């Protein structure tokens, strides 16, 4: 089973971010970068499938030099090799154009299954995985919490509002991950040492069969701002829990008008 995992490097979620001086980006200096949490589920699932089905797990990403660290993390978890498209022109892509670049890389690789995070927790786009499937003309199933493979077919449990739906697809297919799919493993020291010897192939757009003009962004960030700052509110005190709650319920009804 040849498995491809799409990954992205993102700022660590525990960070408080600052907007850059141009007002159109977040400051990227002194930021701790990590493998996108939803992509960790993807790598983990790929490794579990590989354990029973055999084959190779290839990580594919678009990013700057530094993004190799995210690939190394996936390799340390146990993936076999990585491909990084590192090209200034690729870094200016919007989500749709990034998907075109990824699809072009995958087109030249053998694959039976592609797994991607449901979204990257930086631009929260929910786009790239699904769009890659469309460009490769294969089906996609998003928000998967469970899968079973047999006879060249896959059965996936996809989360929907209030429950799950079970969908069957022939391979190849692209899945996106949902929290609950698995518990990603920690990297071990031997894993990290082994990962250093694994190959990351670096590609530029010139190495791909892709027309640069098709990558022109259709979405443009005009500005960024912080969400409205919340005023620290009122601590409600009372002689007893009973009286504090009475006051809380009263203000929620009369002042905030939410109950």
């Amino acid at each position, binding site marked *: 089973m040849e498995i491809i995992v799409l990954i992205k490097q993102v700022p660590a979620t525990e960070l408080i971010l600052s907007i850059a001086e141009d007002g159109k980006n977040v400051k990227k200096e002194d930021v701790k970068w990590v493998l996108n949490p939803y992509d960790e589920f993807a790598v983990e699932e790929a490794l579990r499938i590989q354990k029973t089905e055999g084959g190779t797990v290839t990580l594919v990403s678009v990013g700057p030099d530094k993004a190799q660290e995210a690939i190394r993390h996936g390799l340390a978890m146990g993936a076999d090799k990585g491909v990084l498209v590192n090209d200034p022109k690729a870094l200016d892509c919007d989500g749709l154009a990034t998907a075109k670049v990824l699809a072009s890389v995958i087109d030249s690789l053998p694959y039976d299954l592609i797994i991607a995070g449901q979204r990257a927790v930086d631009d929260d786009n929910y786009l790239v995985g699904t769009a890659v499937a*469309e460009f490769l003309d294969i089906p996609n199933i998003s928000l998967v919490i469970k899968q079973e493979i047999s006879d060249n077919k896959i059965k996936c449990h996809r989360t929907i509002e209030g429950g799950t739906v079970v969908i069957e697809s022939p391979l190849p297919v692209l899945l996106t991950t949902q929290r609950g799919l698995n518990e990603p493993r920690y990297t071990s020291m031997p894993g990290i040492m082994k990962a250093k010897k694994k190959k990351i192939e670096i590609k530029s757009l010139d190495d791909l069969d892709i027309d640069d003009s098709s990558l022109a962004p259709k979405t443009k960030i005009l500005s960024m701002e912080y969400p409205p700052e919340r005023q620290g509110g009122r*601590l409600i005190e009372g002689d007893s829990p009973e009286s504090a709650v009475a006051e809380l319920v009263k203000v929620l009804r009369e002042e905030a008008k939410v109950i």
Partner: protein
Amino acid sequence: MSENILVIAEQSGGVFRKAAFEAISEGKRLAEALEAEVTVLVMGSDDCFSKIDDISSILGKYGADRIIAASGQALGEYMTDAFTNAAARIIEKENPGIVLMAGSTQGKDLAARLSARCDAAYAMDCTALEIKDAQLIATRPIYGGKVIAKVMLEGTLKIAVTRPNAMMAEEFPAQGAVEETKVDDVGATRLIFVEKNLDTDKVELTEADVVVSGGRGMESSDYAAVEELADALGGAVGASRSAVDEGWRPHADQVGQTGKVVSPSLYIACGISGAVQHLAGMSSSKVIVAINKDPDAPIFKVADYGIVGDLLEILPIVTDKVKKLAG
């Protein structure tokens, strides 16, 4: 920019999502700025349509000038390929400038696939949309809500997905003229529906008007006190990452940057200290209440109202008083 607006309104078993009405009335607001029409596309099986009482008045109420009722056997349950094929065909025929839909699990999936199919500009989870200098500008939270971006969508077709609960479902009475169309052949499909398992009593977290969340301060998997308060308020139960990591609550309940982002009218955080990731996922709630025994918990810095104290003592009293209000 004279271009019409197509809103894809999601129904399941003949019942429309509240978020679909939000998307239609947002479409109507944009259409007024553009002096354009709003066409609402509803996809479903004959069985779904037979359960909808009066589609014209249900959708016309929120601003649907025209309604395309597309029925087909393959459109009973949402499957990405059948719905993308059907929607893409109707988009091609209708040639709208803007396509809107609500960011449910279906809307997110369909919008992404459609945007790739139609090579359309795409903006997910928009909290506001406006037309400025004849351009469509979307406001959307990114980095889990730590930053709000204004994004311009360019090109002949633009797909914008509205975040549930972020926009008002306002009444904009419109004609709601219904055109029925048969979709007998949805083209090549590979996905097969096997089964669906729903907990129908559950209020959907991202669409709930009230969310009551519990964190590490709950101290165990016994969430009865939180569930009872959520029930009394007709709301949904959420959880912090620590509560999910402890195995106290299912993954689907996690609120935060790496879980679900919610913006209810009322968010009650019970025993949640307020990690950056959690705050990112709920700080767009209209009113936040925090109940926590630690007076220094960061959650109090964002809460409109706070009570310092023991959850298991306080929550039942809140539930009791809320029930009394409801009579």
